[in-house]
């Protein structure tokens, strides 16, 4: 399934298939026709996932299997009703965020999905090669909701990055990101701060990442407006949010990737570039027709 020369990816795949053999057909589809460039990117990211996982790689892979099956009920609800099951943060907190063992499994599953879901990998590649690579020398970087730490690792590794911070409302998430960065061997000084962006400090950054957070919010527009205030004039923001992506804690339904673009404009950003990444095995056209999850990435700037 994977050609020689991609040792990290091959190792992770071996672990994944050991605990989830029935996923082989999907994974064959995932890597069928993958270009050497895409395989190099995926192999590099798989290396980071392996470093984060340490000796718990089988657990990470088992939790990915669990997450895939766990979310099928949300898919069922979405297909029947045309909306997400939950819309209130309090309900997501009661069902998901307050359950620490469940959250651990969920975060592990999301980490593995960065490798196994083509759109997730593609977004990370676009982040590295288009967003981070386009930032000027000496940029001050902020990520809100850094989670697994893969984006923060890529941004802080840029030779142009002068400083990097990660903000999250959850102390547990901050601790998890810190541990992930340490395991990835990150040698840059990164401040990880407990912060609620609805009450932002009077500071500004040249570069902001906001990946897979909007869909978890009751009022995503208010969050984007807050980030607009945190972005220095001429700075760039990377927003990634999925359309039609039913998960147990997704509250705000973007029915198309264009709705993310429109919300960015409404928050005051000028649009620099977009990437609409369909899921494994589907074209963007098929994803639109079948209401499959599409990662909508928007790079904006503050005029």
């Amino acid at each position: 399934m994977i050609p020689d020369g991609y040792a990290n990816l091959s190792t992770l795949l071996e672990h994944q298939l050991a605990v989830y053999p029935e996923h082989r057909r999907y994974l064959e589809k995932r890597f069928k026709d993958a270009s050497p460039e895409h395989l190099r990117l995926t192999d590099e990211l798989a290396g980071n996932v392996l470093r984060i996982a340490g000796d718990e790689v089988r657990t990470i892979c088992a939790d990915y299997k669990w997450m895939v099956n766990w979310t099928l009920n949300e898919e069922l609800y979405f297909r029947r009703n045309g909306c997400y099951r939950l819309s209130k943060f309090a309900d997501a907190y009661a069902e998901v965020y307050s359950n620490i063992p469940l959250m651990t499994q969920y975060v592990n599953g999301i980490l593995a999905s960065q490798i196994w879901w083509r759109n997730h990998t593609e977004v990370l590649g676009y982040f590295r090669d288009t967003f981070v690579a386009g930032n000027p020398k000496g940029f001050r970087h902020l990520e809100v909701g850094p989670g697994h730490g893969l984006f923060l690792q890529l941004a802080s590794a840029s030779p142009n990055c002068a400083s990097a911070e990660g903000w999250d409302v959850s102390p547990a998430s901050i601790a998890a990101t810190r541990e992930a960065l340490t395991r990835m061997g990150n040698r840059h000084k990164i401040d990880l701060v407990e912060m609620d962006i609805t009450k932002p400090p009077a500071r500004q950054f040249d570069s902001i990442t906001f990946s897979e957070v909007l869909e978890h919010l009751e009022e995503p527009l208010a969050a984007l407006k807050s980030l607009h205030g945190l972005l220095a004039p001429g700075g760039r923001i990377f927003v990634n949010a999925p359309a039609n992506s039913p998960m147990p804690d997704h509250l705000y339904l973007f029915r198309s990737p264009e709705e993310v673009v429109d919300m960015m404009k409404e928050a005051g950003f000028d649009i620099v570039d977009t990437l609409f990444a369909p899921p494994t095995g589907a074209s963007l056209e098929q994803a639109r027709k079948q209401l499959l999850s599409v990662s909508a990435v928007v790079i904006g700037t503050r005029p």
Partner: protein
Amino acid sequence: MDKVAAIIRDMFEDYDGPVNDALTAEQVPDWDSLAQVKLMVAVESEFGIRFESREINEPANVGELVQMIEKKLAKK
């Protein structure tokens, strides 16, 4: 069976093999767990029935799915 076959043909455009009672998900390249959910919801809509969550992955082949539909229609 004809209606179920039409749904399957519509969902799996790239599959051009036979659609009969013996057909299983393994024989259709794009028939994964997500496609199974989509198929069952399409069947619900077509026949005006409702599956329990535990029934979504129950049919082992198309023949068993047709039997499940017939049982639910008989109870209506």
